[in-house]
C-alpha cells in the first residue's frame, strides 16, 4: 500500500460497496405509509415465529446446541494450540528435545527457559525445561521452529490450576513412557508437510 493511500483520510468514499436498502421515507405521509404497511404485513411476528420455531426445534427435534462442558467435551481440532507436549522418540523412548534453545529464542512472550549440560554420554542433555504458562500466548512459534518435532501443542486446554508450576515442568509435558505407543504426531505448526520428501534434495553418501 502506498503512502498516498494511507494519507487519504477521506473515510467512506473509498472502495465501499453500498447495499441496496431502498430509500427511507422523507415525508410524514411516506413514514405513515411505511408504518401502516409494516403493521398490516405483521412483520414483527416474523421475529416471534423464528424464535418459537427454534424453541420447538431445540425442545422436540433434538437440535439443542448446548454441550454440558465439564461433563461433555467437544472434540478439538488436531491443529489446536493448547498446553505444550514434549514428544519422545518412538524407537528409544528418549525425549526428542536436543536442547538447541531455538524455542527459547523465538518465544515472543519470553516464557520458555531451559538448562542444559554436557552429560556422561557426551551429549547435550536438557536438565530442566520450563514454560511459564502465565506468559505463554500459545502462538505456536516454538512448535514451528523446533527442528526435532519435539515440542508441539497438545489438546489440554484446561489451564485452571492451583499453581502455575503444576504443568510447567519438562516431566509434565513429556509423553509418559508407558503411553509411548499412543503418542501421536502433531499435524499443526512445524509438522512435516505431506510432500516433504519431494521438496528435499538428497545428500550423497559414500556408504
Amino acid at each position: 500500500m502506498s503512502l498516498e493511500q494511507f494519507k487519504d483520510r477521506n473515510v467512506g468514499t473509498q472502495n465501499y460497496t453500498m447495499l441496496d436498502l431502498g430509500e427511507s421515507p422523507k415525508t410524514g405521509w411516506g413514514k405513515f405509509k411505511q408504518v401502516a404497511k409494516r403493521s398490516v404485513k405483521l412483520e414483527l411476528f416474523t421475529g416471534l415465529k423464528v424464535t418459537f420455531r427454534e424453541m420447538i426445534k431445540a425442545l422436540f427435534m433434538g437440535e439443542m446446541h448446548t454441550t454440558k462442558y465439564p461433563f461433555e467435551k467437544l472434540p478439538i481440532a488436531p491443529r489446536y494450540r493448547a498446553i505444550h507436549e514434549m514428544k519422545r522418540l518412538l524407537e528409544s523412548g528418549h525425549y526428542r528435545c536436543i536442547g538447541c534453545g531455538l524455542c527459547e529464542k523465538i518465544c515472543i512472550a519470553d516464557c520458555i527457559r531451559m538448562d542444559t549440560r554436557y552429560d556422561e554420554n557426551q551429549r547435550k542433555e536438557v536438565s530442566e525445561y520450563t514454560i511459564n504458562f502465565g506468559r505463554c500466548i500459545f502462538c505456536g512459534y516454538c512448535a514451528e521452529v523446533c527442528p526435532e518435532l519435539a515440542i508441539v501443542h497438545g489438546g489440554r486446554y484446561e489451564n485452571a490450576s492451583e499453581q502455575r508450576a503444576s504443568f510447567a515442568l519438562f516431566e509434565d509435558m513429556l509423553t509418559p513412557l508407558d503411553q509411548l505407543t499412543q503418542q501421536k504426531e502433531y499435524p499443526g505448526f512445524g509438522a512435516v508437510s505431506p510432500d516433504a520428501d519431494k521438496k528435499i534434495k538428497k545428500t550423497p553418501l559414500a556408504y
Partner: protein
Amino acid sequence: MSKKEITIRIDGVECRTTEGEYILNAARANGIFIPAICYLTRCSPTLACRICLVEADGKRVYSCNAKAKEGMEVVTSTEEILEERRAIMEVYDVNHPLQCGVCDQHGECELQNYTLELAVDFQHYAIADTMREVKDWSTVLHYDAGLCIVCERCVTVCKDMIGDNALKTGPRGGSALDKAYKETMPKDAYAMWNKLQKSIIVPSNGTEHTNCSDCGECTAVCPVGALTERDFVYKANPWELKEIPATCAHCSSGCHLYYETRFASIDNHEEMIFRVKNEWNFQSLCGAGRFGYDFENRDVTKDEAAFAKAVEALKKAETVRFPAMISNEEALMLQRLKEERGVKLVNPEVRPFQRFLQAYAKASGRSLYGSDFKEIMKEADFVVSVGAALRNDNPNARYAFNSVQKMNKGAGIYFHPVGDTLVPTFGKSVECITHKPGQEESALYLVLDLFADKESLPDYLREYLAGFHETRTRTVKEKVMKEIVEVVKDEESGEEKEVKKKVPEMVEKEVEYDHNLLAESLGVDPVAFSESFEKMMKKKESFALIVGEDLYGHPQWENLARLVALVEKHCGMMTAMIPPKSNALGVALICELVDEASGYTVGYNQPGDFRLSALGDGDLDMPAMNQQEGTMTTMDKRVVPTNAALEYGGYELNDLMNALGLGKRLTIDWTLELPAEKGFQAVAFDDLKDGFLNDGTEIRGYALTPIKGRASTAKAKEASDEVLEGEIAYRCNPQRQFNDFTDRAHQIFEAFALYASPAKAEELGEKVEVVFEKGSLTLEVVADERMEGEIVAVPDFKADRDVYGLFGESRYANVTIKKV
C-alpha cells in the same frame, strides 16, 4: 622499520596499506570482505582453507599470503573463484555432523556463515566418514574432532601468538579420495580436501593431553564448535549471552575482553558470567583472563552496621593498605584520603615499581618508558628481556617476545636467573642467559656493550665497558683446502702424470678474539655467545628491551633504572617495562605511597585491622572488578575503561568517601579528575571509547601523555658483585594465577604451592617448610616441567599469606627448605 605506504585497488576501491602487507590484511583493514577461514590477522598464513582466493593483476593468488604491491589491482570474486569457493565449502560440509542444534558455536559459526554466504544448497561430494573421538585435552580444553574442519587456526595461534606450540596436525586415518574427483572437482577444492582428509588436530607432545599454559586462545579462534572450553560445553547458546566489554584486571596487560552474561539457570535468575570472549584478531588473552572470570562478590546487600564501622575505621586509620588490582578511580579516592586526612598509603606490590619508575624518569627525563608491548610485537625484530620471568609474569610480554621471533623473524636474548625450557622454543635465535640473582646490572651492561652506539656513550661508560674486553687467543680447528700433487700412472700408456688435487685438512690455528668478560661473568661461554650473537644480528633493524619486575625490587634499583635509561638512549631500543601487577602503573602514577605501614590499618583486599574486601571475607564487602566500572592503566600506557558485568548490591569505596564528605555522586565521576600532571587526560568516563578498528588500531580509552623533564646526568654505578648464593626462593606465581581473584575462579586450578623444576621437586619431596628470615611458609611441592635449575618459586597470589612481607622488596630471598 617503517614501511613504505602504497596504494592498491581492491574491487575498484582504493586502499592504503604498507609494502609487504598481505592483500587479505589490507582488505580487512579497509573494511573489504574477502572470505577466509584459516587466516588470523596477526599470525602467519596457514593456507589450509584456500577460500581467500582472489585475482591480483589477473593472476589467481591466495590473498592471505600474497603481498600487496604498489598499484595492484585485486578482484575478490570472479565466477571461477566463486565456483572454487563454493566447492571448498561443499567439501567442508561433507560429513560435518548436522548437529548445529546442540553445537556451542551455533549462531557464531563460520562454517555456517560461509556455507550460507556462498549459497551451498546442494552437496556434490561424498566420502566415508572416519570415527573421530571427543577428547578433553586439559582441564579446560575440549576437542570434538568430529566437528573439526582442520583449518589449523588453533595450531597457528598457539605457535605464532602464544608460543606454547602445544598443537599440531596429526593423521586422521580417513579413506583416500575417489580418484574421479580429481578430474571433476575444482583444483583448489580437491587439494584442500586431500589435505583435510588426512589430518586432524592433536597435542604436539604426542600424548592425549596438552602441556600448555591453558590460555584457551585456541578455543577462541576455532571457527566451528570443535574446540571449546570444557566448562562451557552445552551450557548456553551464544545468542542468549549478553556481551559486556570490559578490561581484564588480573595483570597489567589490561586486555580487552567481553564478559558474556546470562541468567544463571531456571532456578536462579541472577546474571552470571558464562564465558569470556576476546577480539582474537587483535588481542590474545591468557588463561587467567579467559577462565578467571567468576570472581565476583556475590549476594552482597547493604550492611549498614558494617558500613558505619568501616567509616569509623577509616576515620581513625593511620594506614590504608591496598593491592595493585584497583581501578584508577579508587586509587585516586585513596590518594584524596591521604591528602585530606593524612593517611599513609601502603602498597607492597607497587611501591618498588613506583620508585623505579621515578628513578627512571629522573635519569631519562621522561616520566614513562618510551615504547609499549604492542609496538614491540609489531615492529621489533630483536628483543631483549631482563629481569622478567616471561612465562609467568605477564602473558602479553611473553606473547610479544614470541611473536617477534615467529612473525618478525627476529631474535631474542632472555636474561633470567630461573631456567626456563619454554622460552628457547620461541625461535631458533633465542639465547637464554641464566645468570645468578643480583647480576641484573651486568646483564644491562652487557646489553649496552652489545647494542650501544659506542661513540655516543659517555666516556666513563665507554671505558668501563672496554674494561671487560680482552683480546685473547684460542685454538680453532679450521678446514683448509690443501693442494697436493699426485703422480698417477696411466695403465694403458704407462705414462705417469702429475695430477693436482685439493684435499680438505683440519688445521689447528691460533686466532685472536675479543673475550667478553661480562658475558663470561653471566655464566655464558663468551666464544659461543659471540658467534651466535653475530648470527642473531643479521638483518636486524629494530631492537627492543623488556624490563621486568626483578629490577624494581633489586637492591641496586636506582642504578638499574639509570642503566635502563642509558640503554634506551644509546642503544636505540624500544623499551617497555612490565608493571608488576594489575594496575600498578596507574597506582604508581596516582598515589603517593610509603614503604611501611604503621598504626591502625585498613586493608582493602589486603590484610589489616579492618578489612574492606571484595572476596566476601572482610568486615565490609566491596565490589570485585567485574562488578564495577572505572578505568585501568595498562602496561601499554593506555587508560582503558572497564564496565560492570554483574550486579552488585552493596557499598563501594565511593560510598565510604561520601560518608567522609570526600565523595562524588558516582565512582566514574572521579575519572575526570585523574591527575593531568601525571599524564592523564580530563576525559569523562562515558566519553571513553572501547574496542578496535578494522586495522587493529586500539581505540580504547586514551594513551597517557609522557611528561618530559630534564634528564639527570648522574653517572651510572659500576655493577656490584653482590650475588645471591645458596638456596634461593623466587617470588613468582604459576602461569594463570595473579591474585586472590584468579584463585577464586572455578576454572583455575593452579595451587598455592612451591613450584620447582622436576629434578628439584623430586629432591624436595611432597611438602616442605620454606624458612625465610622473617618467617616461614609450609607448602606442597609442585613440579613445573618448564622450570630448570635449583631456584624454587613461591607464589604471592594470596594476600593473607603475606609473601611480600617474607620476601621484602627483592623477588629473591635466601631460604632454608626443610622437608615436612
